[in-house]
């Protein structure tokens, strides 16, 4: 069993950074949703805010690592133009476009994924900043609206990453980067 350098980078991009981000989402969402002074003691709120800061900070780092490795390491291999007479299996974009039954994975899947993925780090960092800035006060009833707004931004960042991750997995299945 041997993995090429390209396969290792593709796995890091999708299965380590991207999947790590997606897996961490539920913990962050539960932490944000239950951050209410009527549900949690003062000690609990302080502990929960510290945990949220670490979780969302880790997600922000993973999110940026995912889009940077995707855009600047994996994507150039995906979109490279094949020389005359090359085996298209080594050039995923050209391979997909050459087959009318597979072309949609590029024209819809990759075209959407490569752009929407960048929404995720932007929104995650906004969420991270708001948690750091407002901290335990987010649990207060008067800040209920802000807490809900943060939850919505957090869900949107996850949805963007989810779309990108789903298409990434499906495109890799149709035309792996070898």
């Amino acid at each position, binding site marked *: 069993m041997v993995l090429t350098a390209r396969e290792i980078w593709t796995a890091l991009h999708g299965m380590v950074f991207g999947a790590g981000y997606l897996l961490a989402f539920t913990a962050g969402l539960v932490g944000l949703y239950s951050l209410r002074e009527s549900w949690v*003691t*003062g000690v609990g709120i302080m502990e929960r805010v510290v945990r949220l800061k670490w979780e969302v900070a880790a997600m922000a780092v993973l999110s940026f690592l995912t889009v940077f490795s995707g*855009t600047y390491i994996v*994507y150039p291999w995906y979109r490279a133009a094949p020389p005359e007479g090359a085996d298209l299996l080594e050039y995923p974009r050209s391979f997909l476009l050459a087959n009318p039954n597979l072309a949609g994975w590029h024209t819809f899947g990759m075209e959407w994924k490569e752009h929407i993925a960048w*929404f995720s780090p932007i*929104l995650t960092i906004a969420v991270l*900043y708001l948690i750091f800035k407002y901290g335990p006060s987010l649990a207060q009833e008067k800040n209920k609206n802000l807490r809900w*707004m943060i939850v919505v931004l957090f869900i949107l960042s996850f949805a963007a990453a989810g779309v990108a991750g789903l298409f990434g997995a499906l495109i890799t299945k149709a035309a792996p980067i070898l």
Partner: protein
Amino acid sequence: MSAAKTVTRTKTIPSGPAVAAMISAGLGCLAIGVFTTGAVLSEELKNALNIYNPAGPLSGKTTFAVVIWLISWLLLGYLWKDKELNLRRSFIITMIMVAVGLLLTFPPFFEAFEA
């Protein structure tokens, strides 16, 4: 001082910094969409966005969108750091910018402009 009192005694932070963070994030998402559809509409813009050839115009679309996001955040954050602003209205504006950004990055939409 108990932790419960620490929470209730947390000093009130104005809404300005939250509004700046949300609006600038919305602007960043909108910018990605504008560059994506713009690159389809204009060959000159598409070429200008190609700042790292192996990644093509995607490199410029995302780099310039991140620059717009961060600069607008710095600027708005400075201007609104002590201001009490309408959080609800700002959130709606942010959601509209994110939604338009999403639409502009949706392939069936921007492909409709392809020659």
